[in-house]
């Protein structure tokens, strides 16, 4: 207030303070003194909420459509939900018909249609607010259904393909640069040495796995999408890279804020 209510000066004061500059990571000495973390020396890690998680994945992949406003949209749902589904909306239409405009599938979650009788499956297992009851606080559960959703959904996998494409476009062909870029996009940091060696080891092995698939009758792989130049793309390497991106995007570090 003395500084004329300047938020910048206030932020500067906060940011330069000793408290602010302390690490908020878990430390043995801190835990010994304050096991319940009452003094908040350790940052209480928080899971992204249902919509945050979806939007974050979309954003990271570079796919998020940030259009503001307009009627609610019907993003893609598993085909098994729609196929043979005689559920109707009371006016003869289907309960959920995927939006025709592909951009509608990439809108922010706040624009996803909320149907009480048919929750949007992609976020349904992440404890969204239940639209049929009053609500003051969300649960935070950690379930296998969530893992299945993030790891198996074709939609999420598609975003990982797009993210892989984005990384290659931004980082070029150099493997080190690609891994750095991926981590910067997802976590605002570079991978540690240990992580890098795990990632590189994975790429090598995965490439062989994908290659072995080439000997089967039906050879199809998921490659990075959104690339301008695909001439130099080695499909085995590229598919292995998509798998890597998908695993990293599924990791705890993405689902939580620390």
């Amino acid at each position: 207030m003395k500084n004329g209510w300047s938020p910048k000066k206030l932020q500067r004061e906060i940011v330069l303070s000793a408290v602010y500059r302390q690490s908020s990571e878990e430390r043995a000495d801190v835990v010994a003194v304050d096991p319940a973390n009452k003094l908040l020396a350790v940052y209480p890690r928080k899971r992204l909420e249902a919509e945050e998680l979806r939007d974050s994945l979309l954003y990271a992949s570079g796919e998020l459509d940030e259009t503001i406003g307009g009627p609610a949209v019907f993003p893609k749902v598993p085909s098994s939900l729609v196929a043979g589904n005689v559920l109707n909306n009371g006016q003869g239409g289907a309960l959920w018909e995927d939006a025709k405009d592909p951009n509608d599938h990439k809108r922010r979650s706040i624009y996803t249609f909320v149907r009480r009788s048919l929750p949007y499956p992609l976020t349904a297992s992440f404890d969204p607010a239940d639209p049929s009851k009053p609500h003051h606080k969300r649960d935070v559960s950690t379930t296998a259904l969530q893992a299945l959703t993030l790891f198996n959904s074709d939609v999420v996998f598609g975003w990982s393909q797009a993210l892989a494409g984005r990384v290659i476009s931004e980082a070029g062909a150099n493997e080190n640069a690609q891994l750095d870029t991926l981590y910067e996009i997802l976590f605002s940091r570079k991978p540690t040495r240990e992580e890098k060696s795990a990632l590189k080891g994975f790429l090598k092995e995965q490439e062989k796995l994908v290659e072995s698939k080439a000997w089967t009758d039906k050879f199809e792989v998921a490659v990075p999408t959104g690339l301008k130049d695909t001439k130099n793309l080695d499909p085995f390497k590229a598919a292995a890279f998509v798998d890597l991106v998908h695993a990293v995007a599924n990791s705890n570090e993405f689902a939580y804020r620390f």
Partner: protein
Amino acid sequence: MDNKSRRDFLKNSSLGVGGVALAGAIPGFNISAASAAELIDPLAPKDPHFPAKIKSVIWLHQNGAPSTLDLYDYKPELVKQAGKGVPDSFLKGIKTSTQGGVNELFVSNYRSWKQYGESGAWFSNLLPNLAQHADKLTFIKSSVTIGATHDISILKLNTGDLNPGRPSLGAWISYALGSANPDLPPYVVLYNGASEPRAGSVNWNSGFLPAVYQGTAFRPGDSPIYYLDRPELRSALQQRSSLDLLNRLNKLNAENRPLDTELKARLRSYDLADRMQVAAPEAVDLSKETDATKKLYGIDDAITGSYGTSLLRARRLVERGVRFIQVVSGAPDGETEITSWDAHDDLDKNHGLMAKMVDKPIAGLLEDLKSRGLLESTLVVWTSEFSRTPWGESGTGRDHNPWGYTQWMAGGGLKAGFTYGGTDELGVQVADKDTAVDTYDLHATVLHLLGLNHLKTTFINNGRSERPTVVFGKVVKDILA
């Protein structure tokens, strides 16, 4: 600078140097956030309050309200009085105004009755197969509930309340007992027909309990859960090695936070997902069942096939330690006109089809459980949101009756071949009010058989200690073995 962070971002922007948000960071998510559950494994198995009689419950919800006056509750007086009005004395103490009004007593011309088994229980000609199991059943012929719309009374049947927000019985059980099979959810919902049951997932919701305890709906078909199959373009080997990488990354990440149980829980959730990917389709895959078994459940028949499939799946889930299996009756495959027991008109046509759909499969289930030695450790509950009136509606239909009807249970810990309570001579309402069994009493009894005291199964919500039976509920002691 190697590690960019929130902190640096703030610093830069406050000094006006960094300008826009740092490349690639995710904006807008710094305000509201979820604080993660601290429990290590909320589904770890827990001991009951006292030794349990049963391990699993199969909750057969007969959706749409069957007329138990046409199935189990034989009323010679009703047959005699058919076509006449209902004497006022029978209507005392009930409110018929919210229903469609009181018409002349009605009896179907096609109905006939016989006694079965040593217990001599009455069954109508609609349930010839189930009748063979008379001596396995424990009838509660004095069931009551609150009559409202189907959706509201169904909610009460499953959660004990007329408004959404309370946990369903299965959720309470998952909460109190945890999971007996680490590869499958402890609470599964099955249904037949093309669409999810009416009134939907509020009926297997966890209400104010943590969401992990909610029921998992298994859809008909080979892939019972969404996202059970890996992305199309990935091979099983690719998937496996990707999971290994994910595991490795998560472990590295958790090393910095050795005390954070939530991170370990999430790590484990991917392991469980990996196992469930195998366990869930296997649990519902009937290809290893013999033709004789399938026939027993009526799976070879168009009308009984889909319901029989649900029940055979239910038995497989019982074998795999699932605690609560809620089976909601739908309609035979391809049937679009009759989709529930709700026979406001043409009861003969409706119940003719619906009874046929469930009769053989339920009889098959009881026989199969018995022959596998599972009936003693399982409870089968035949239940509905309410039943139907002795008077007719639209000529040949029946209206809703919440004042007195029949439900039954079969399985461990009960007096088999036993009937508790009864309705008046016309089947309008419970004969002796002291024997009335409301939803809460049914819930209390099911919990009791599972070794749980409903008064001690509690959860603090908004500072108040809540229990499965709201503030009501008494174990129906007279039916316990």
